C-alpha cells in the first residue's frame, strides 16, 4: 500500500493509553461462546461426579456421537441465525432428505448414490424455497419455515405411506452402492477400544470450516452484516437477498448430509422422525451465544451448545435417572444459558 504515504501522522507504535489493560479472562468473556464454555465445564464436572460411567472414554465417545448428530445441523443453523433468520423446518428436512434418497433409489432400483444425489437436490431446493419466500415476501422466517415445517412433515408421512404402505422406508441395505455410501456417511472405527464414528469427524471439520468462513472470509463479513443491519449491508453493496437464500441452502445442504448419515447407519427411516429437532439446533445455537435477532454469534459456540446437549442427553442415562427428565433439563439449560449470555454480553460491552 504505497498510497497510504499521504497519511500525515504515522501512527506511533505505542499502546493507546485509553485502552485499559484487559485481562485474558475478560478478553475470553467477551467472546460469544464464553457462556457456553463455562456451562459445558460445569455440566461436565457435574456428571463426572454423580455418574461414574460418564468418566469412561467409551461413554464420552457416545456423548460425542450424539453431539455430532445435532452439532452438524446446529452449525448452519447458527450461521443462519447470525444472518438474522430462523429455520423451523430444519429438523424434518433431515428426514425428508433421507426418505427421498431411500425411496427414490429403492422404488427405481437405482444405485444408492443416485438417491443420494436426488436427495441433495431436494434438500437444496427446500433451503432455496425457504430463503426465496423469506427474501421475496419479507414475511418473518419464523412463519415461512413454520409453514414449510408442517408441509414437509405431512409430505414425509403421507408420501411414505402412499408409496410403501408403511410408516417407514424400506431397508435399502441390498442396493448397489449402499456399502460405499455407508463408508462415506456412517463409518466408524475402533481406536484403543473406543468407537469413533465419522460423523464426529465431519462435525468437527464443518465447525472449523464454518468458523473460518465467518471470521476469515468476506462471506463471513457479509453474514454478520446481513443479520446485524440488512439495510446498511445493502447500502454498501452486499447482496442481502442472495446471502440469506445461500444460508437457507446451507441448512438444506447439512440436512442432506445429516440425513444421509442417519439413512446409511440404520438402512431404514421412520417417516415421522426429526420433529422437534429443529428446536434442539436452535437451542444449541442460542446456548452457544448466537443472538436471536442476528448479527452476533459463533459456530464454535453452537458446537459447544450441541456438546452441552449431548452431555445432558447421555449423562442422564449414565446417572441412572428417568430419561423423562431430559426435556425439563433442556428447557432449564436454555433459560440458564440465555440469562448467562445476557449477563456476560452486558459485562463485555460495559468493559469495552
Amino acid at each position: 500500500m504505497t498510497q497510504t504515504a499521504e497519511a500525515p501522522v504515522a501512527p506511533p507504535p505505542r499502546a493507546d493509553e485509553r485502552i485499559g489493560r484487559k485481562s485474558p479472562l475478560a478478553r475470553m468473556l467477551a467472546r460469544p461462546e464464553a457462556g457456553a464454555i463455562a456451562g459445558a465445564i460445569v455440566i461436565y464436572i457435574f456428571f463426572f461426579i454423580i455418574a461414574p460411567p460418564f468418566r469412561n472414554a467409551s461413554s464420552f465417545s457416545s456423548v460425542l456421537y450424539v453431539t455430532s448428530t445435532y452439532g452438524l445441523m446446529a452449525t448452519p443453523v447458527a450461521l443462519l441465525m447470525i444472518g438474522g433468520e430462523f429455520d423451523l423446518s430444519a429438523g424434518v428436512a433431515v428426514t425428508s432428505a433421507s426418505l427421498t434418497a431411500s425411496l427414490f433409489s429403492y422404488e427405481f432400483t437405482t444405485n444408492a448414490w443416485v438417491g443420494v444425489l436426488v436427495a441433495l437436490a431436494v434438500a437444496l431446493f427446500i433451503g432455496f424455497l425457504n430463503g426465496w419466500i423469506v427474501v421475496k415476501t419479507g414475511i418473518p422466517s419464523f412463519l415461512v419455515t413454520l409453514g414449510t415445517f408442517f408441509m414437509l412433515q405431512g409430505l414425509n408421512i403421507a408420501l411414505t405411506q402412499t408409496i410403501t404402505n408403511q410408516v417407514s422406508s424400506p431397508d435399502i441395505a441390498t442396493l448397489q452402492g449402499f456399502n460405499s455410501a455407508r463408508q462415506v456417511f456412517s463409518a466408524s472405527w475402533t481406536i484403543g477400544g473406543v468407537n469413533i464414528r465419522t460423523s464426529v469427524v465431519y462435525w468437527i471439520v464443518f465447525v472449523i470450516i464454518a468458523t473460518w468462513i465467518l471470521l476469515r472470509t468476506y462471506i463471513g463479513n457479509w453474514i454478520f452484516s446481513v443479520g446485524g443491519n440488512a439495510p446498511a449491508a445493502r447500502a454498501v453493496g452486499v447482496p442481502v437477498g442472495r446471502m440469506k437464500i445461500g444460508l437457507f441452502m446451507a441448512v438444506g445442504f447439512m440436512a442432506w448430509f445429516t440425513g444421509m448419515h442417519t439413512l446409511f447407519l440404520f438402512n431404514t427411516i421412520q417417516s415421522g422422525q426429526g420433529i422437534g429437532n429443529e428446536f434442539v439446533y436452535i437451542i444449541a445455537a442460542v446456548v452457544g451465544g448466537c443472538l436471536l435477532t442476528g448479527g452476533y454469534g459463533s459456530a464454535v459456540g453452537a458446537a459447544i451448545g450441541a456438546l452441552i446437549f449431548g452431555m445432558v442427553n447421555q449423562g442422564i442415562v449414565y446417572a441412572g435417572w428417568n430419561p423423562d427428565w431430559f426435556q425439563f433439563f433442556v428447557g432449564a439449560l436454555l433459560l440458564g444459558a440465555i440469562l448467562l449470555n445476557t449477563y456476560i454480553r452486558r459485562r463485555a460491552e460495559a468493559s469495552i
Partner: protein
Amino acid sequence: MSTPQETPAGKHHAPPVGNGRSGVPLVRLVNAGKRYGAVIALHDINMEVSAGEVTCVLGDNGAGKSTLIKIIAGLHEPSTGTYEVEGTPVHFSSPREALERGIATVYQDLAVVALMPVWRNFFLGNEVRKGPRIDIGAMKKMCKDELLAMGIDLRDVDQPIGTLSGGERQCVAISRAVHFGAKVLILDEPTAALGVKQSGVVLKYIVQARERGLGVIFITHNPHHAYPVGDRFLLLNRGASIGNYEKNQVTRDELTGLMAGGTELEQLSHELESAGGAVADLGRSMEADVEELGISQHPTATESDAR
C-alpha cells in the same frame, strides 16, 4: 456473487477531479422532478456541486430532501429533467452504479452495523481479499491510518462500532466513503441526532473532505450548521425550490428566515392570535419574531435562476 467486487486496490484516494472549481460540475440536476403516481414529490429542481465545494440542501421535514438524495444516489431516476455527472447525462438504476461513478451516500441511520468491529464496518462490501480470504492485518492498519488522516484517533478499531459516539460513527462512515474513492459525498442529515460538540466534529470533516477536493452535498434542516461550511444553498419547501443561493448572495439570518418559512409563520401567528387566551400571546410573540427577522417576505430577488 455475479457482481464482481472491485478490489479496493487502485481505488484509493482517487485523485480529485480538479483543484478547487473546475468548469464542469461533478453533479448537476436540471429542472429535475419526481412523481410517485399522482404525488409530486419534487418539482423543477436545479442544483449542482463541483469539486472542492459544499452544496447545502435545506428544508423542513417533508420538503423533498430524501427524494432528492434518492435521485442523486441512484435509487430513483428523476421523472422529469436531467441528471448529469461530470457533464454527461446519466440514468442510474441502482446505488451501485452511482457509487461506481464516485457518488457515495452516507445515510443518517443506516450507515453502520452496530455489532461489528469498526474495521469490518469500514471495509464491508469492499473487503481486501486474497481469494475468498480477507487480509485482516492490512485492513485494520488501513482503517486506522485512514481514520487518522481524517483526524479521528480511535482507541481500537476492533471495538464494535456501536460503542462509538454518534459523531464518531458518522465520521467513520464519511472517511470510508472518501477512502473508497468517492468524488461526491451525499451526507443525509449527518448532524441531526448529534449534540453541539459532536456536530462541530462532523462539520470539521465536511470541511476536510472539501479540502481534499471532494464535492459535498450536505442535507440538513439546520441553517446554523449549513451556513459556515456551505458554498451554495438550495432551499426546498413542499417539493419545490424556494431559493438557490451562492454564499455571497445570502446571510445566515436570511437563510434561517427562509427555513422557518416566513409567510407560513406569519399565517400561523395570525391563526394563533385569533384563538385567544394564552395561545394568542404565543401568536403575538411569534409575529414579533417574524418581523424582527425580516422574513415576512422572501429576501431580495437574488435567486440565481437556472443556468
